[in-house]
């Protein structure tokens, strides 16, 4: 808290005041006054408190923010008897302290500009106070900082004034040491802009000031009844041993040591371990979020300790326990890791209450990423000699589904302790040595594969590859909705020491009358290290899940998800691969190259991958191919050959033809690598197909151009190609012998005489594993328009397959003509294909069913704006909105999505909230009813959503503002660069403007309802309608209609309503004036002129308080 000696100061709301009667004024880094003392026999401290600092039940009251008697405020917030109620708090009224025009003020702010490694200078601005624009008093000096139409911060308006820089070098203070160690030493090495550097300097300065406040106000409270202050410097100087401290004293010492309080320049020959250096909290890889998060932790720590009654009298152990219990996970981040672990262990032997479970989970959540490896290792240890710490904690936590935990904001609904635990461990795992996808910042991987980013050399499973179970592809088969056959395959898991055991469960039901069959079985699938990655395909996704960010997840998390079957509750970051309804390789071959980065570990965990990388004895024979004919059809290469081939694969090829050959070979080896993990069908088919293509390319090389491939590679290509002929014949034979009843076998006919070789191979890949006759009969049952069987469904398969659409594999598509057609219609559009294709199975079906018969105009909207799909899903996916949304019909939904698909999350949530009797249905109707905005459409639509209750409602009537009023408010915001809020009961007008040139002004618009011109035009007697609307005004005689209303509005200025202040501005919205004029067969400007004339005649003296909108 810097201080200055000025006799004037600026309050946080921007009002300049005189402070010559106050003592000890304190200012924030931006120069606003935040504290002062009123002198007297019993001096009183007044401190600035924001709305959010008041008790929850009081926060619904307006205008709480202000400067309060601190002694009373503390009693209020700490509930110290007798607890003052809100109305007993003393808020300082500055009306007798207001400054005057022309008085000189000096504002002192912290200088965050260059030099960025220096702490710190101040910037002093001296100027004379000016009058406000309306000349009613001294100007307001608060300048709002806006981003995306939201107020993000404020500063003192010093525009146009030149500062004087005052040096205030603090480099030899604890704050200066801390600043240098944690920012100053490296900020100038960062390649970031000057503005960004200034932002870092600002947050670091705030951190230092906050630490000083904690040291001043909080540490003494915690240290009461300890010997900390007697011991601290003796320990720091090495005179006393650190272990002479109690745990609480250690806690305090660690705080202060980290903050630079014991640091001193090292002296040669006299090592002082606690003084010569201290641990840096930030370093070159730190981000702004890291700094900001630490600042928030300090702020939380301060606030919570400050608010806690009698904290100083707590016994020492209770203080530690209490601090652990009360502090939020982010505030716990300031407590040393070893104390956290000690506290976690203390819970182990106990059966815990829900309250204690919450504390335990919170402690786990508070572990910072820098301790990720250490903590994950700790979980694998066995404190009790029998079970891993992971299992002990996991079993300790119970499923309290209805509990609510305010300390974590990641989830919005009721959660379980185990879920928090699993999530917290997952967060740590992501940045640990156990995650094959995580490469520590600064680690450079030599020679990475194409599409593969490589692997950290210190990765646990890279070093201990024997602990990695490479058979880790879990292929789920969701229950299909075919009427005749349903099959299902899923996995169950259990914890077994340091591993997760996974069992495969499969089920097949055939419904065919007397021949119905129901098969179910299970088999052991494998055992996986708790932290090993496993991959999914086919996991039945939930509509609420969003796009996955990763295709793998650690085994312990899989166990958690399986156990709870509550994947839907996890946030998108944990949703992972659950959306994948086709296998990863198919995604890759249909254009999803990004999938490979998630599967890159295969290169390091499969034998073929390790051989390619040169990690296996060169003479060892590696099986790289097992064909369709079983053991007689195996192809091997030596590891040495594979290493040679790898050199070829990672070369850069500039020749276009040769580059295609190289890419083909790379694809083959990606396929072959997958062979080791259970994707044999797809992988084999792709390897075979690519081999044929590569050989064709080699054959087509111009004379004289050498292909450059090793003989082993050519040998492999030839083997793969030869395998194709045999394979296709075998499969064709199978098709020809299908028992399809009396029907002609169109499947074999088309396979044999219509399909190309590539199509045959693909067809085989898609359907080879199906033995069920009911499936084949359904596939054979496609008919033409006349109802005659003609193998139409096979044509559908070709159509979808040739387009590279995964849906070709599903009878729910190819055996449904409408669905096939609409899928093609959408995906044939180059703009829509990338949007439609990634949709999950269920969401895609929902979308295509809804728009199966989409009319051409609406279809064109999708083509023109592919984001409309996402916007549509935003409302469709939300189960609260869905019924109302669907009720709008096709065109209504699209119009709604076009307008409101992009609104902020806050506005989206606001829409759902009921306010008195105003419900979602009403809000939907309201939003539909708005006429199309004609300018600033994005802003209008956004604000129309935001200007709905409860965030924006008419407080006086508990009703909605009218449509045309709302639009007038929005237009005012645009025109005057402010943000409107609804007026409170004791304020004038409909709205109060915040920010901009009308800051804090009350405004009351009047205008024309948007449908009035249309209504008028429909009248039999238009003039009668018009005259009735226009009304009349004769002073003291007549006042009706629009003219009477103008009079009433001006009255609000000079004869305000009882209990309200005078209105600042009346606003006349001229929108639709032209249309009204035209409706009464006058020139468009007729009404405008009439009204202007009327105002000049009757209210000319108030025109400086009149705003004309849409004029």
């Amino acid at each position, binding site marked *: 808290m810097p201080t200055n000696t000025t006799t004037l100061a600026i309050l946080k709301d921007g009002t300049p005041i005189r402070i010559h009667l106050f003592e000890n004024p304190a200012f924030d880094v931006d120069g606003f006054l935040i504290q002062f003392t009123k002198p007297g026999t019993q001096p009183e401290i007044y401190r600035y408190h924001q709305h959010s600092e008041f008790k929850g039940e009081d926060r619904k009251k307006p205008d709480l923010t202000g400067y309060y008697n601190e002694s009373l405020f503390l009693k209020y917030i700490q509930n110290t008897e007798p607890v003052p109620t809100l109305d007993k708090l003393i808020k300082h009224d500055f009306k007798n302290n207001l400054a005057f025009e022309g008085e000189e003020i000096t504002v002192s702010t912290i200088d965050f500009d260059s030099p960025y490694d220096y702490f710190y200078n101040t910037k002093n601005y001296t100027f004379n106070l000016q009058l406000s624009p309306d000349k009613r008093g001294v100007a307001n000096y608060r300048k709002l900082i806006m981003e995306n139409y939201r107020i993000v911060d404020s500063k003192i308006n010093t525009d146009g004034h030149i500062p004087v820089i005052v040096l205030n070098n603090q480099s030899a203070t604890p704050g200066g040491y801390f600043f240098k160690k944690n920012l100053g030493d490296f900020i100038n090495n960062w390649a970031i802009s000057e503005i960004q550097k200034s932002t870092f300097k600002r947050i670091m300065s705030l951190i230092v000031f906050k630490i000083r406040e904690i040291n001043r106000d909080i540490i003494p409270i915690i240290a009461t009844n300890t010997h900390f202050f007697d011991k601290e410097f003796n320990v720091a100087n090495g005179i006393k041993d650190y272990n002479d401290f109690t745990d609480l004293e250690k806690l305090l010492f660690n705080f202060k040591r980290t903050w630079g309080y014991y640091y001193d320049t090292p002296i040669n020959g006299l090592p002082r371990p606690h003084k010569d250096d201290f641990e840096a909290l930030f370093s070159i890889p730190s981000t702004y979020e890291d700094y900001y998060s630490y600042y928030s932790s300090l702020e939380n720590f301060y606030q919570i300790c400050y608010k806690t009654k009698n904290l100083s009298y707590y016994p020492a152990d209770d203080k530690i326990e209490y601090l652990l219990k009360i502090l939020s996970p982010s505030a716990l981040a300031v407590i040393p890791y070893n104390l956290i672990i000690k506290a976690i262990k203390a819970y182990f032997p106990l059966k815990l209450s829900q309250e204690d479970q919450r504390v335990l989970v919170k402690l786990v959540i508070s572990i910072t990423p820098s301790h990720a490896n250490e903590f994950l290792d700790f979980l694998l240890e066995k404190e009790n000699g029998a079970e891993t710490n992971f299992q002990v904690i996991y079993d300790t936590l119970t499923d309290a589904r209805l509990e609510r935990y305010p300390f974590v904001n990641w989830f919005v609904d009721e959660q379980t302790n185990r879920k928090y635990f699993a999530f917290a461990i997952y967060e740590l795992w992501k940045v640990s040595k156990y995650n094959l996808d995580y490469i520590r910042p600064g680690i450079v991987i030599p020679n990475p594969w194409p599409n593969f980013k490589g692997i950290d050399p210190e990765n646990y499973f890279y070093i201990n590859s024997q602990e990695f179970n490479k058979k880790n592809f879990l292929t789920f088969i969701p229950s299909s909705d075919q009427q005749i056959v349903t099959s299902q395959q899923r996995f169950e898991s259990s914890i077994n020491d340091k591993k997760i055991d996974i069992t495969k469960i499969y089920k097949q039901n055939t419904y065919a009358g007397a021949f119905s069959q129901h098969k179910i079985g299970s088999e052991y699938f494998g055992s996986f290290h708790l932290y090993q990655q496993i991959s999914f395909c086919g996991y039945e996704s939930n509509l609420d899940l969003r796009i996955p960010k990763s295709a793998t997840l650690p085994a312990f998390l899989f166990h958690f998800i399986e156990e709870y079957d509550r994947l839907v509750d996890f946030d998108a970051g944990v949703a992972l691969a659950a959306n994948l309804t086709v296998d990863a390789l198919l995604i890759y071959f249909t254009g999803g190259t990004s999938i490979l980065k998630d599967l890159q570990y295969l290169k390091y965990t499969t034998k073929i991958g390790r051989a390619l990388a040169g990690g296996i004895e060169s003479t060892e024979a590696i099986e790289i191919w097992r064909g369709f004919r079983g053991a007689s059809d195996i192809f091997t290469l030596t590891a040495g050959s594979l290493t040679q081939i790898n050199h070829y694969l990672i070369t850069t090829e500039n020749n276009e033809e040769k580059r295609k050959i190289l890419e083909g070979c790379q694809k083959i080896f990606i396929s072959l690598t997958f062979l080791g993990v259970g994707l044999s069908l797809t992988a084999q088919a792709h390897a075979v197909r690519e081999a044929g293509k590569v050989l064709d390319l080699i054959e087509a090389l111009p004379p004289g151009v050498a292909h450059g491939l090793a003989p082993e590679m050519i040998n492999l290509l030839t083997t793969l190609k030869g395998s194709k002929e045999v394979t296709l014949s075998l499969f064709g034979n199978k098709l020809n012998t299908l028992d399809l009843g009396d029907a002609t076998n169109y499947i074999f006919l088309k396979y044999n005489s219509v399909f190309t070789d590539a199509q045959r191979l693909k067809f085989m890949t898609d359907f080879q594993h199906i033995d069920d006759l009911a499936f084949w009969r359904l596939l054979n049952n496609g008919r033409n328009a006349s109802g005659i069987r003609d193998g139409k469904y096979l044509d559908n398969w070709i159509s979808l397959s040739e387009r590279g659409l995964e849906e070709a594999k599903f009878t729910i598509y190819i055996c449904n003509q409408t669905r096939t057609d609409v899928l093609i219609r959408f995906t044939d559009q180059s703009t829509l294909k990338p949007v439609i294709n990634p949709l999950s199975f269920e969401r895609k079906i929902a979308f295509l069913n809804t728009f199966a018969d989409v009319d051409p105009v609406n279809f064109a909207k999708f083509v023109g704006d592919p984001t409309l799909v996402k916007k549509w899903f935003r409302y469709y996916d939300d189960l609260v909105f869905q019924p109302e949304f669907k009720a709008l019909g096709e065109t209504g939904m699209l119009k709604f999505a076009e307008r409101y698909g992009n609104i902020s999350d806050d506005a989206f949530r606001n829409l759902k909230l009921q306010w*008195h*009797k*105003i419900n979602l249905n*009403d809000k939907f*109707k309201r939003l539909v*009813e708005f006429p199309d905005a004609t300018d600033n459409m994005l802003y209008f639509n956004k604000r129309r959503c935001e200007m709905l209750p409860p965030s924006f409602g*008419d407080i*006086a*009537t*508990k*009703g*909605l*503002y*009218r449509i*045309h*009023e709302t639009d007038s408010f929005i237009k005012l915001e645009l025109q005057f660069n402010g943000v409107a809020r609804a007026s409170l009961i004791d304020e004038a007008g*409909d709205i109060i403007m915040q920010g901009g040139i009308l800051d804090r002004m009350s405004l009351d618009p*009047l*205008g*024309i*309802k948007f449908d*009035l011109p249309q*209504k008028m035009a429909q009248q039999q007697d238009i003039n*009668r*309608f018009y005259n*009735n*609307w226009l*009304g*009349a005004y*004769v002073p*003291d*005689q*007549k*006042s*009706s*209609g*629009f003219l*009477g*209303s103008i009079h*009433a509005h001006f*009255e609000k200025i000079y*004869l*305000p*309503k*009882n*209990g*309200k202040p005078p209105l600042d501005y009346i606003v006349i919205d001229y929108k639709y004036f032209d249309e009204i004029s035209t409706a009464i067969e006058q020139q468009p400007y007729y009404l405008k002129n009439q009204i202007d004339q009327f105002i000049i005649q009757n209210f000319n003296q108030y025109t400086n308080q009149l705003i004309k909108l849409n004029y």
Partner: protein
Amino acid sequence: MPDTKITNGNNLGFWVHEIYMQLAYCYIYDELIKPQYSITNKDDMLYSIQFHINGYSTGIMSLGWEIYTNSQSDKQMIISVLQAVKTNLQNKGAFISITELQAIPTEDDDFKIYYRDPFPTYQLIKIVDALIEIIQGAWTSTNYSMDIAYK
């Protein structure tokens, strides 16, 4: 929702939110339309009231009865209408039911959205009483704000 100042031409009157005045107009219309009330320009007066009920005057509502209360007899007749409205309201009991509120014919959708709770009859009678005083010339305030306790 906007408020409106209800006056009979001069500055004397009271402020009330339009949505409540709109409801009062509904009951005044129902009574005024009865044949026993003979007023000069009655047709115009009904037209003007219906204009308000249908929400055409949203944001600019007023009373505008100066031209219907020029003669003493018309003025007396309108007072009779208002007194009958008051009696009708009193006979409804403490509250006007939601069913009745929702059945009121109006083109204004917002009106139907708003009246979803039983309306306390007394609050409406306050408005009618004030109107009677204004027409009688007994009303003295220029800026009285009539608070309606609803919701």
